[in-house]
Each structure stands twice: as C-alpha cells, then as structure tokens.
C-alpha cells in the first residue's frame, strides 16, 4: 500500500487527493462522494500534482524531519539540531523535487527588527543519485555552488574541510557587498545526500553565534543501509518488471529503494510522482529481485536510486546503465 509521506509537516496542511473517480467516469459527482465539504479550506493544497510517497509509514524518509520542543530531528539522516533561542520555522519547505532536492527546515528569528528579518537558516539535502550537480561528495557539491555563484558575490572562505561535533563538514562563506548579506554554508554527506546548513544574515556576529550552536547538533551513528549509486544495474538485477505508467506526463520520477539481505525491495521512496505513477512503480518494484549485496562477505542491506519516467541527463535511468563509479558511502 502506498502511503503519502511527503514533507510530513506540510502534509498536515495538504489533503490526500482521492482518485478522480467522478471525473474519469464521466458521471456527475454525487452527494455520496467522499471528501464532501461545505467550504473549501483556504491555504490548503488539495490538488498536489507530482508529490512524494513511500511504501510504508515507518521507515524514515528524508523529508520526514520535524521540530519538537525547539529541536529539529530527522530520523533518516540521524540528525538532531537544537534551534537557536527564539528561532522558529514559520513556513515549511516545499515537497521533494524531481531532482532529489529537499528543504528540510527553514528557520528564522521569531521577531523581526523594525520589520526586517535578522537572519535565517535553511537546511537542505541533495540526493547525489539524482542531483544535476554531478557531485560525488560534499566538497564537490560546495565547489559546484562556488563556481556557479553570481559574479557580485565575494568568496570570503573557500570550501574548506573541517570536523564539527566529530563529523566531517565542508565550510564555505561568501558575501554580497551590495546586499550586505553574508552566507555561511556547512555541508556534509549522509546516506549519499549532501546535507547543507545555509546561514544568512547581515550580522556576522549573529552568524558566528549560530555556527557555534552547531556544536550542539548531533549526527547519529545508527546502522543504516549502505548506499550505492548504481546498484540497480543489469549485473545486479535478477528479476525485473517494468511499471506501466499511464498518461504522458514526461516527468522525471526519482525513486530510492532499500534492498534487503535477500535481494528483495524492502522499502520504496518515490521522491516525486503523480499518485497513479507511484502506485505502478511500487507494485512493479515488489517484483524485482536483486543480487544480495555482500559486505565483508556477508549479505547487507543496500540503498540505491532508480530514475523512472522522463530520464534526465543526470539521473540514473530505469533502464539501468553504467553510471559514475558508485561506492559504498557512510559518511557522517
């Protein structure tokens, strides 16, 4: 059964769109239809288009983080980040993109100063299986950002590797003279994603304090599946059934799967797809069989990505093809 898991906090304001039974059947909607309302709620996205979903509700997914008691926690990334005092998330991020980009949290001070916002923090994740940056690690990802900065930005700290709370990060700072805004970027690799903390403010001392607060964050060392970019390659697929995608949307459909020790698909996370596409893909993947992944000679769970639908230049295609050398990654 497919479960809607996209951006769980946003999902609280997003209703699940039931199948278009009334319209597709060509009959007039009747009063006995489900989801009848007296008034359409304002500020609610009821017609969602391509969205994220997962095959079960318990396996953590990247967009499943949440803030509780002033702490942002993300079980998928094993990430815990205590918010700075009086900082809040006023607005949830958008759903995962069809290039594997997530806005995990966007934070700012509760109060503005004379109508102006003093600073902000956006926490993002980019799936290295699908990212158009073609980066393989945090340094490459940040370097991509640096090389694509607008000309008027001044780099104040070139991408530099450092250790924060015992974990490797890349730090990168830049500055806009015209705006008077400073950006501090901290990036690290987790489960073949680049997780970024992007701090922005006109006040460098505020940014420095926020950066010091990063020390209070945690990245857990829980056992997670090995992530391998190109594991869904012909040499590893023993059985496959191609999903039949109805309609002609031409949208990219990035999918992450966790393959169990026996080579069966244990969990499917569709990052972006229309509901009928997600269902078809999940149904098909249940019938795929992979060669079990061996770590130190013993079967181990593996996580990989498959691109269905309209293949992008940089995505891993559903017709598995050789991609950049994938290697097990377990960076924190």
């Amino acid at each position: 059964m497919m479960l809607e898991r996209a951006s769980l906090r946003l999902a609280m304001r997003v209703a699940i769109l039931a199948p278009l039974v009334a319209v597709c059947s060509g009959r007039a909607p009747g009063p006995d239809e489900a989801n009848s309302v007296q008034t359409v709620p304002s500020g609610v996205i009821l017609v969602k288009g391509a969205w994220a979903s997962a095959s079960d509700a318990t396996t953590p997914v990247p967009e499943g983080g949440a803030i509780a008691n002033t702490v942002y926690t993300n079980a998928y990334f094993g990430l815990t980040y205590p918010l700075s005092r009086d900082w809040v998330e006023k607005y949830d991020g958008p759903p995962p993109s069809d290039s594997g980009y997530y806005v995990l949290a966007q934070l700012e001070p509760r109060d503005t100063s004379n109508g102006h916002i003093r600073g902000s923090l956006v926490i993002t994740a980019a799936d290295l299986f699908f990212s158009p940056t073609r980066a393989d690690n945090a340094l490459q990802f940040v370097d991509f950002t640096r090389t694509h900065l607008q000309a008027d930005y001044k780099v104040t700290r070139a991408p530099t590797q450092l250790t924060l709370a015992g974990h490797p990060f890349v730090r990168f700072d830049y500055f806009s003279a015209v705006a008077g805004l400073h950006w501090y970027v901290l990036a690290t690799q987790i489960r073949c994603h680049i997780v970024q903390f992007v701090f922005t403010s006109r006040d460098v001392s505020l940014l420095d304090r926020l950066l010091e607060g990063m020390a209070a964050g945690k990245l857990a060392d829980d056992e997670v599946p090995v992530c391998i970019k190109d594991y869904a390659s012909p040499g590893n697929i023993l059985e496959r059934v191609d999903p039949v995608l109805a309609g002609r949307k031409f949208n990219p459909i990035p999918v992450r799967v966790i393959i169990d020790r026996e080579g069966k698909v244990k969990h499917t996370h569709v990052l972006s797809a229309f509901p009928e596409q997600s269902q078809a893909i999940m149904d098909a993947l249940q019938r795929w069989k992979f060669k079990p992944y061996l770590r130190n000679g013993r079967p181990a769970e593996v996580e990989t990505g498959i691109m269905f639908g309209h293949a992008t230049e940089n995505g891993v295609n559903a017709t598995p093809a050789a991609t950049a050398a994938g290697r097990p990654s377990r960076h924190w």
Partner: protein
Amino acid sequence: MVRSSVWSVAVAAGLLIVSTAGAQVDPGIRPGAINGQPGATPKDPMPLESVSANRPDGILDFYSNGLTRFQEEDTVGGNGLGPRFNFNQCSGCHAQPTIGGSGLPTNPQFTAVNNGIAGPGNNIPTFITLNGPTREVRFPFFFNSNGTVNTSAPNGGVEALFTVSGLQGAGSCSLTQPNFAAAQRTNNIIFRIPTPVFGAGLIENIDDSTLLAIHAANAGNGLGISGTFNRNGNDGTIARFGWKAQNKSLMMFAGEAYNVEMGITNELFTQERPNPEEEVQGRGLPANCLNLGAAGYPEDTTNYTNTSGTPGSTAANATILSDLEAFAQFMRLLAPPIPSTNTPGGAGSISNGKNLFTSIGCAVCHTPNINRTQRSKITDSLDSQTVSAYSDFEIHHMGTRLADNVSQGSAGGDQFRTAPLWGLGQRAFFLHDGSQTSVYSAIDSHRSSGSEATQVATNFFSLNSSQQQDVLNFLRSL
C-alpha cells in the same frame, strides 16, 4: 482621445502604493513611454525591430493584420462568439499598457452587459468590479448535487462569465451563468488574469537545451529552490505559455483562448466548449446553442477564398490566415518591453536594485537574461537573441498562500510558471489572480508553507528599507 483617458486612469490607479511595513513604497505604474518604447500608443504596440523594418519582405503585413484581428469585436452571428465567453475581443483583456498586455486598471468586463457585449440576462458577478482585475474564473472542484463541494473531484476548468442568451443572433439559446455565488460561498473559486504576450516570440524560440542548462546550473543553490518543467504531453518538450506553462506554443495559446475565453471554435479546438459541469454531466451544450452563426464549424478557419488582397501579394497572404494563426503571428512578432534606466527612483537606485535582485536570489528563478534564442527562420529579431524576460520558464511550488488547486499538465495545485517580469513596471495587477496591486505585497506573497521562494523573500525582508526601495524601483523600471 482614447489614449489619454486610458493612460490617466492607469497612472491614478497605480500611484504610490504604500507597503505594509517600513518606509518603502511601490512607485506604482511607471509613467512615460508605453513599454519604454517611444512611438507605442495604447492601441499601437511596437513590433520587433526587424518586423518594423519589414524583414523579410511582407512580414509587417502579417503583424498589422494580426493586430487588427486581435482588436476585432466578435459577435454571435459574425464570428461565432459564445455561447459562453469571458469577453468579445482579445484586446479587451490584453490591453495594459497597450494591446498585448495584461488587464487594464478599469475592467471592461464590468460594463459588458450594459454595453451589449454580454446577453441582457447576465449578471455581473460581485468579483468583477470596475477598478478590479480583468478575470477568468475556475472552480477547483465539482459540486455535489446537494451543493457541497466534492474535493475528490477536481474541476479546474474555466467557468465562462457570460452567455450570449438574449443577444442578436442567439436565437432560442437560453443558458444560465454558473452559480458564482455558491462558488464564492463555499470558497470553491479561483481567478486568473491575462498574461502579457510582449516578446512572446522570443520565449517561443528558446531551445529546451538552453532552459535545461540554466536549470542544472542552479542546482547548487542554497535557497530551497528546485523547479521543474511542464512538458507538453504530445512530444515531451517544454511548454512555456500560460500561468502554469501549460501551453506549448503561441498557436496553442491562441487557439485555447479563442475557444475558452471567447467561445469561438477554431482549427485547434474544433468544438463549442460547454462549461465543465455541462461536459462532465454528459450533456454538453443544448442543440439550440450550437451553430448559432449557421455557418458550420469551426467558426474560425483558413480563409480559403479570401480575395481582399491582390492575388499573390503579401497582403493577400496575411488575410488568408485564420484568426488563430493571425493572433499567433501578432503575438510572435510583438517587441518585448524596454526597461527604463532612470524611472522610477533614478538610475542609481534602479542599478542598485537590479544588483540586489540578483544578490538575494530572485534571479535564480526570475532569470534576467537567457542566452540565446535558437536560430529563427521567421525574422532576424527572433534569431540568436538574448531574452530578458526575467523567467526560467520552470514551474515552481509557490506554497499554500498562492495555491489555487488547479492542475494543468504536470503542474499541481501550487505550481506556477515563474512569471516573466519584463513589462512589470506598467502593470496594474500582480500574481496569477490579480489579487495584489503592490509589488511589495506580491513579494510578500512568495513566503508561505510549501513555497520554493520563501527563503529568497526572507532575504528581501532582511534588507534595509532603502535597499528594499531600490528593489521596488528596479522592478517598476522593467
């Protein structure tokens, strides 16, 4: 006479719109040359430079002919107006600051009944006001027979404002307007305003590879922006016209509008269009509302036997086109607006605002320059040109505040094409629904849950008042 009256109303309506916080002020509709083009008038926009110079020979006739047809007032018996429609001429809605633009500060739909454009039995809905935006209406969901809204049954189709019933030529056709009051009462209603079409030929002539390269180059942004493209369901290439980039080409844009907005069937949309409820209930339009012009379908066709021009002359060539093709030609050959370098706020403020616009991240989506259009077989002003539309032509999630719960193509209920900003300086209404008359408020509307633009708007509100004013001045200079 017409020129001066329209312009004075426009200026008055947009003047000095004070923002809700701080000292920054939306300067309002920019005075001075229309579209920044000396020589343009409210009824006479400027064609592309090479078209103005008639390169290739004869192309100017196509532009002029298209402009004339764009202003044509359609009637039931003449061109097949209706039976349901929103207005009777393209230029009635695409008029600000000149023909081809968005809606005027004074909405002509408000006087449609009094002016005999709509049938005498029509009521002007309360959301159509004299000084409000020119609008089309959609009901996001179908109603149940008991009057409740069925959120399992997305609708999203245009609900035409008016019917021809009672007009000359309508015969016994008796249609009622959709129940707009019920839609308002149940909050099951959304609005759209006309998109300007200046420079549309340049947009049409951008190769997909150029747009994809811009998309890829922005992948490392730390602003929460991703975006995607609305692809045409026939060939999978990038669609780029309309509020959700749902239309592939100007021909498609024109054909859909001619049928949906004016009720005129054409060679792309060959059947009379019922309202969505009539269609889904399996009834369609009543027989006595079909073929009101008694000339058969489609109502707009190629003019096979046109003899209005000298045979073999270019004037004859232009008149042979169907209206649909002539509209597309006109839009394709329209020049883009020219930004002002010093109004409003002075050159320094505009320059600073432009730099700030880029620095805070607006330019990630509102791409200032796209280099370049593909080679053009039509005219050299479309050939290998920079497109300063301030759009990436992607669709982006805009969040709960702007969501309209209408899906078109691949675009979901909160996804919209990055609105091109060229010409913004002389527009009266902003956002897809025309709900904002202030640029400042329009920026603020970018911040909401689920929006890709929240962080960039946050950066805007991190600027001091003077900097924000520079951004507003820059935007009104476009």
